[in-house]
């Protein structure tokens, strides 16, 4: 499977923050969830991919083309949903259609209006009068209406109620259904990603802590909770990170089955992405 988005050793230096050697790869037809806490570098990475900021070093390839030389040709294949970056809010959906018609060759007015209707967004209404959820949906619809091959989203479901989030995730899954479209989305609503993401990339303080398939994480990683006695028996090589709590030890384990065979921990649970994030960020003795 060809990679639709390939980031190699991307670095960006700011005064107070550095994006350091970011590398990951998104194959075609897949959804990659990009997780990390606020300020970890998610938005910076996305801006670098979109050439909104200039990278200090590294290579980015989109649809097989280098961003340095062929970005102009691939731009029309990218649909973008950024946090709080959109059309001036005194414009309406109808006016967006008028503007985009002459901006993207592949703009599909029929599809745009169909989606507007599906989500009950009035074409004549000014953006500023829409609710937050409607506005986000409009941003996503706008990104989809020119039939891009790659959708890049920065926190697309941020601040939305569960119903709106569900509708949007459904849209995303429909988008990738035919196997030729892909999505790269950053989010800190990890429960969304646990369901639909094929790949998860975890960034923390400007560095990639892990980039694996969702199944590898959800099926193989685990959280073991055990007493101090059990903890003392665990070999350092068999865990990624741990945290000493008041009444127990929490251990992040990379290979559930192997760990289960070797140790008799009181509790060995399937992990959630939230717990993964917490243990990797706040845990002691992290090895990656």
């Amino acid at each position, binding site marked *: 499977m060809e990679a639709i988005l390939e980031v190699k050793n991307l670095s960006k230096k700011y005064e107070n923050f550095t994006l350091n050697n970011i590398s990951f790869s998104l194959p075609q037809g897949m959804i990659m969830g990009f997780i990390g806490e606020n300020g970890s570098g998610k938005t910076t990475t996305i*801006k670098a991919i*979109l*050439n*909104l*900021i*200039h990278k200090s070093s590294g290579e980015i390839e989109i649809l097989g083309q280098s961003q340095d030389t062929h970005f*102009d040709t691939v*731009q*029309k294949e*990218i649909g*973008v949903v*950024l946090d*709080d*970056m*959109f*059309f*001036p*809010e*005194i*414009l309406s959906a109808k*006016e967006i259609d*008028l*503007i*985009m*018609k*002459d*901006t*993207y060759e592949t703009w599909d007015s029929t599809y745009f209006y169909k989606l507007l209707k599906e989500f009950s967004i009035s074409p004549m209404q*000014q953006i500023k009068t829409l609710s937050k959820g409607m506005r986000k949906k409009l941003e996503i619809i706008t990104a989809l209406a020119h039939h891009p091959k790659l959708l890049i989203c920065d926190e697309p479901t941020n601040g939305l109620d569960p119903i709106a989030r569900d509708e949007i995730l459904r849209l995303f899954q429909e988008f990738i259904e035919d196997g030729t479209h892909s999505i790269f989305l950053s989010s800190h609503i990890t429960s969304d990603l646990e369901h639909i993401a094929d790949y998860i990339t975890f960034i923390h303080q400007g560095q990639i802590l892990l980039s694996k398939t969702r199944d590898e994480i959800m099926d193989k990683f685990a959280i073991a909770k055990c007493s101090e006695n059990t903890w003392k028996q665990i070999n350092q090589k068999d865990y990624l990170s741990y945290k000493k709590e008041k009444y127990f030890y929490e251990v992040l384990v990379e290979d559930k089955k192997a760990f289960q065979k070797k140790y008799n921990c009181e509790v060995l649970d399937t992990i959630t992405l939230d717990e993964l994030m917490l243990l990797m960020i706040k845990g002691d003795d992290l090895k990656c």
Partner: protein
Amino acid sequence: MLGLIKKDFLLLKNSSKSYLLVLLIYLFLGFIGEMDFSFILPFMSVLLMMMTFSYDTFNHWDSYVATFPKGRAGSVRAKYITTLILILLTSLITFFFQVILICIKKQPLELVLLLEKMLGTIFTTITILCISYPAIYKFGLEKARIGIFLVVFVLAFAVQALASAIDLNQILNGLAFFKNIWVPTLILLSLIILALSYFISLKVYSKKEL
């Protein structure tokens, strides 16, 4: 790029109430008074275009449009073209309005003088555009505003001082041939500073981190 031109016109249309008010005031003043307000409409159009910059910044439109195909260059080009269209349109409207006014008031119609005034207005507003836009692209509207205001003020003052200090007609009479070609010279000058300003804006904007 056509889409981006549309965008600014749509923005102006949606916020045109203040513009209409000024237009009405202008029409009224022109009708009852003797003073020359022929610069107001074209000047307003540049100010309104600056307002579109303000809308753009507020909604982080700059970042969004940079993701469009040829977004950055298209955005700059569209801004310049839209502003020029507006300046020309408002100058023409002003011109025709003045002709009508003169006919109503039964005053002597000096077409050439009127045309010269229109050209002068166009040139002045284009100059303001050429100074302002690269500044706005480089420093953002807020910071650029003060600078532009100062520059325009100083320029206006300088021109005024120059005009009163030197008897322009005397000089022009001395340079008879120049009198004939000052129109094409002005047009050429306009094009040159426009091109300069445009390329500076493009360069600044393409490097900007959004």
